């Protein structure tokens, strides 16, 4: 069932974040968080190790609070499927500075590679567009990824949604911090907020 030209997830994420500037990045639990950590730890990374289905909503809360900052959610197909309603919520609020990237390997890699709904009929780009996220697309090549990356900095034309078909390789984990208090306060401090 292997398909030609599927992308390497680490290459995709490191290309997207290579010139991230001030962007805040939210990583969905599992491999997406490892990919973001592999691209380089950063004060403005919000890593998730749980709360499945919540990544897009965290990105939305951040994007509404910081409308001049690019906010990028990078998550997997399983995590996105669990929070699919949040695409409708984003479609209603339409924050210009929010970008959602789904790394779609059509499977639940962290739990043994069970097939996910996107491997059959579920079309997340179609869902996002139908929820009111007009800029919804599939990215298929590394060249397209690199051409897309600068758009993450554009805080006036979002929200945008991109689905990237990646290969199913289970890569070595690159563990990010997992202490929520540290991650949150480091991010808040980078944005200029003191602890209470």
């Amino acid at each position: 069932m292997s398909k030609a030209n599927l992308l390497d997830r680490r290459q995709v994420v490191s290309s997207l974040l290579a010139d991230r500037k001030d962007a805040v990045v939210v990583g969905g639990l599992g491999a997406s968080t490892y990919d973001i950590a592999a691209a380089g730890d950063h004060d403005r990374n919000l890593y998730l190790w749980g709360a499945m289905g919540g990544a897009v909503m965290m990105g939305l809360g951040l994007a509404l609070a910081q409308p001049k900052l690019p906010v990028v959610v990078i998550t997997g197909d399983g995590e996105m499927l669990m929070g699919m309603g949040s695409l409708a919520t984003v479609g209603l609020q339409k924050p210009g500075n929010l970008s959602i990237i789904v790394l779609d390997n059509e499977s639940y890699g962290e739990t043994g590679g069970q097939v996910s709904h996107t491997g059959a009929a579920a079309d997340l780009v179609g869902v996002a567009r139908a929820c009111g996220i007009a800029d919804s697309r599939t990215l298929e090549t590394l060249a397209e990824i690199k051409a897309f990356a600068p758009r993450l900095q554009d805080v006036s034309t979002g929200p945008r949604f991109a689905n990237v078909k990646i290969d199913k390789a289970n890569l070595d984990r690159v563990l990010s911090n997992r202490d929520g208090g540290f991650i949150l306060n480091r991010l808040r401090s980078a944005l200029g907020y003191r602890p209470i």
Partner: protein
Amino acid sequence: MHARSEVSAEQATNWPEEIFSILQRFEVRQVPYVPDAGHSQLIERVLASSTMRGIPLTTEEEGVALMLGAWAGGQRGVLLMQSSGVGNRINMLSLTQIFRFPFLTLVTMRGEWGEFNPWQVPMGSTTQGVLELSGIRVLRATLASEVRDVVEAAASQAYNALTPTAVLLSQRLIGTKVFTK
């Protein structure tokens, strides 16, 4: 009959307006909600406000995640919902323990005080227990005259002491939903 007349007396006090004032004073900016009749007046006030943003959700767990993001970005939130939604957000409530962020939710109660609809009773009767098991402190307002003090205390401990708190607004306070005349 006795219950019904008490309800209308309670409704005479404008407690939703008092809640709105408290939220204003605490500089709440993001107000995610799943609509409920008991919250309708407050939701209208929020949607008309220039400082608060009302954010309709498809399910209550979205609101917990949204509030974490809001706080990461420097804004306070409050989650408005009905008791039946408490079960929908249990796993997401783990964020309150992991991140220790200011979490306040105002929950209108169903499934008690003369409920007509049996489907509201199972979740309504476990709402407080579910919240407490999830690490949320629970305060309750039963009468209109106590809403202001209870919500004020809840907001204080949530925003000042990072103590995740829920206020249950009793069905006696909001009025039992009438299905048949």
